[in-house]
């Protein structure tokens, strides 16, 4: 059973445009919703995260939108830059029952073209 569905698999955006990546989940027990960013040749790194008590969080050009009823959260990258070209993973976390394990999506490869 796939608990986390991330879309699209790949995305090409013009410089200055808006990149949008979506993550749908099934487990309503998830209580922390991060996005990780991975550049080629590097491990993933935490980019931005949100808790379910808020619907939106913004950090610079990066925004997470959270829709609890739809069981979805998305990453928006405003004014996308070539330096944002990377693979992005959603990784919701369930902290109940001592588990504390992230469930990674399959990733979205973003290419920002000049």
């Amino acid at each position, binding site marked *: 059973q796939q608990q986390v569905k991330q879309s699209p698999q790949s995305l090409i955006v013009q410089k200055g445009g808006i990149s949008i990546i979506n993550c749908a989940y099934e487990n309503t027990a998830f209580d922390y919703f991060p996005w990780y960013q991975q550049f080629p*040749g590097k*491990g993933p*790194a935490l980019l931005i995260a949100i808790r379910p008590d808020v619907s939106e969080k913004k950090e610079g050009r990066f925004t997470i939108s959270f829709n609890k009823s739809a069981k979805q959260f998305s990453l928006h990258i405003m004014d996308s830059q070539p330096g944002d070209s990377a693979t992005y993973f959603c990784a919701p976390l369930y902290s109940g029952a001592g588990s504390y394990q992230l469930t990674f999506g399959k990733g979205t490869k973003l290419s920002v073209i000049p």
Partner: protein
Amino acid sequence: DVKVTQSSRYLVKRTGEKVFLECVQDMDHENMFWYRQDPGLGLRLIYFSYDVKMKEKGDIPEGYSVSREKKERFSLILESASTNQTSMYLCASSPYTTLNEKLFFGSGTQLSVL
């Protein structure tokens, strides 16, 4: 800055060999993890450890074992390497107090089994 160091960036082994992948972190983190990353499949958890000499199976432990004799070091062992274990292996760590809300990843070991 937290540093998670994986001993090899690239590794080529033959089918049936015993393979050791080493990971060291320098921030006194209690939690350590081994993931494998395959194109289109995202990150999948192999094993994790919350303390010295402690280990727990992740989602895909078959064909792997781990060792944690010291807090800073977590080793992944392929007892008899097979071609389907060709993959990128990522080590990660996190402090126990953050409940895995932020994982720190190494740069990965690309293992090829011929």
